[in-house]
């Protein structure tokens, strides 16, 4: 009986708040009667009903939801440095702005209040469009065979952003990027979200939201996870190690996901998204033939993080991961299974004695376990064994001299199961011994003469590349041959 009355009270509360529609309410009432009958006759159902009702409540509660972009600055009336230590690194204010759905504004809006049978309206008077223009120069220690070293790109990338509030609770970070290498525009990182921070849970501030996005971890609030992690800029012409965990960018812009998130008491963040392959630009509906990663069903992504902020300190520790069953070049038949488990941390220390300079430490460790039934079973097998693992570790320390300069030192390491087919031999990009091991360092120095102009120099050094220090590709190329100097000019407006 207590259960029944609890359900009735819960339904009443939801109904009063206008969350249920009439139809849903009638359905809810019928369901409620059914539940009550069964609950009276079988107490064992209690264990089933409570989680179901909690899930329903959560689903009902979740209504349909960076890189620094000036349209946010125009919308909020705040300088870039309020949200970023240096773009794209978010300050506590920037994280809250993102958490709330990119909607905070101090500027005039076209408004109409909700009354009678009318819906409300909250439209920005300024269209939230921004541009990022990147131009770069890349030189590797040894030229890639048959190519000219010292590569200018004007531009390397040009990105257009639709970034700002779409309504009182819905906003976006949506990016379209022209890339010089491919000479066309393509859809880039996108996060459209609903955020609501007007509620309390157990007497503490409670924010919840929904996100549509196209890159696992792009919805995240910290700079310790792959989508917004260091390095924040990179050359698109210098060689990079071939082994990469699924969550470490392998699905970026190739999937579509719908997820939800909560932040309780400004401390505990819990989020989850389910992803499915979209292969934007490919044949639709997806035949699978054009991609080595076709997600079968849905790939769940999870994120749990705890943060605490004091006057001069901000700390986050968390875990995230993804599980995906995929088929290479097909949407039927055997599947590969990959599970990525990751840990991460971020610590930002403001130093009042040094004019509020900021020292940041970030790191993540990703463990990928995979069983490659489908890849192993291809007509021409692309793996020589079924089970593999891959360990990725990344850590970096950054010092921000005000908002004008920043210097970063980063270390990275990838180790895993050797496989001469999965990590096949190929000049420059391949591995002669099938070993995925790579490690090295990245040094970055950025100068921001203005908050929307970044002039950066970045050096990437390899101690080991695709499994060896010397002759890693079997064609005589050493790991250090890929050491690269990267100069970047970024203009954001």
């Amino acid at each position, binding site marked *: 009986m207590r259960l029944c009355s609890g359900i009735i009270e819960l339904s009443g509360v939801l109904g009063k708040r206008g969350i249920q529609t009439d139809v849903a309410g009638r359905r809810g009432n019928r369901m409620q009667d059914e539940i009550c009958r069964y609950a009276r006759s079988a107490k064992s159902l209690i264990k089933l009903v409570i989680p179901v009702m909690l899930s329903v409540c959560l689903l009902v509660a979740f209504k349909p939801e960076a890189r620094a972009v000036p349209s946010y600055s125009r919308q909020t*009336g705040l300088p870039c440095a309020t949200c970023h230590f240096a773009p794209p690194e978010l300050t506590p*204010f920037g994280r*809250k702005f993102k958490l*709330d759905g990119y909607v905070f504004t*101090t500027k005039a809006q076209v408004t109409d209040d909700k009354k009678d049978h009318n819906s409300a309206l909250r439209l920005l008077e300024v269209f939230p469009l921004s541009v990022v223009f990147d131009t770069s120069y890349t030189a590797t220690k040894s030229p890639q065979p048959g190519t000219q070293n010292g590569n200018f790109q004007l531009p390397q990338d040009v990105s257009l952003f639709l970034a700002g509030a779409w309504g009182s609770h819905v906003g976006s970070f949506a990016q379209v990027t022209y890339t010089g290498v491919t000479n066309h525009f393509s859809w880039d990182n996108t996060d459209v979200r609903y955020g609501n*921070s007007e509620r309390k849970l157990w007497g503490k501030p409670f924010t919840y939201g929904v996100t549509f996005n196209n890159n696992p971890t792009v919805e995240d609030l910290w700079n310790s996870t792959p989508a917004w992690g260091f390095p924040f800029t990179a050359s698109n012409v210098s060689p990079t190690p071939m082994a990469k965990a699924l969550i470490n960018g392998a699905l970026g812009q190739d999937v579509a996901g719908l997820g939800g998130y909560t932040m309780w008491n400004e401390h505990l963040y819990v989020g989850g998204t389910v992803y499915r392959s979209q292969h934007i630009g490919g044949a639709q509906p997806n035949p699978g033939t054009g991609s080595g990663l076709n997600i079968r069903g849905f790939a769940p992504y999870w994120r749990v993080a705890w943060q605490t902020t004091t*006057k001069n300190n901000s700390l986050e520790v968390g875990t995230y991961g993804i599980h995906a069953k995929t088929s290479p070049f097909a949407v039927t038949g055997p599947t590969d299974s990959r599970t990525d488990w990751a840990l991460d941390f971020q610590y930002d220390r403001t130093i009042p004695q040094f004019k509020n300079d900021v020292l940041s430490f970030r790191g993540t460790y990703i463990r990928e376990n995979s069983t490659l039934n489908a890849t192993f079973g291809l007509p021409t097998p692309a793996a020589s064994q079924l089970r593999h693992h891959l360990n990725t570790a990344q850590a970096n320390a950054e010092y921000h001299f005000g908002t004008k300069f920043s210097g970063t030192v980063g270390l990275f390491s990838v180790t895993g199961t050797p496989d001469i087919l999965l990590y096949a031999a190929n000049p420059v990009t391949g591995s002669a011994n099938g070993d995925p091991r790579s490690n090295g360092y990245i040094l970055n120095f950025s100068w921001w003469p203005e908050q929307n102009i970044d002039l950066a120099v970045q050096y990437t050094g390899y101690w080991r590349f695709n499994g060896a220090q010397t002759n890693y590709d079997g064609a005589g190329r050493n790991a250090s041959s890929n050491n690269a100097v990267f100069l970047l000019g970024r203009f954001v407006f």
Partner: protein
Amino acid sequence: MRRFIPGAAVMAAAICLAALAPSSAAAAENDAAKTYAKNCVLCHAVDGSGSSPSGKALKAKDLASSEVQKKPDEDLIEVVTKGKGKMPAFGKKISPEEIKGLVAYIRALPNKK
């Protein structure tokens, strides 16, 4: 009877006014609370203390503190309207009447602690 009717009407009107007066005040406070929740909580927190993560990082003022409370209304209205330091200007988004209501709401914050 004739005397009673105007008397009753006056009494009824007085009751209506008495009933309306607190509700309009409550409505004004409710509106101010909504305005505060939409625009100020991000930094100043629900209780005005500035204890939200954003508020701590930006060193937002405790609105219930004597430092803020001793300022005259005109000063608070000007800060909200034009901004000051790291605080942005809200004059283009919030109407002067709403800002006055907001200042009244801020004045009541020490009593809510």
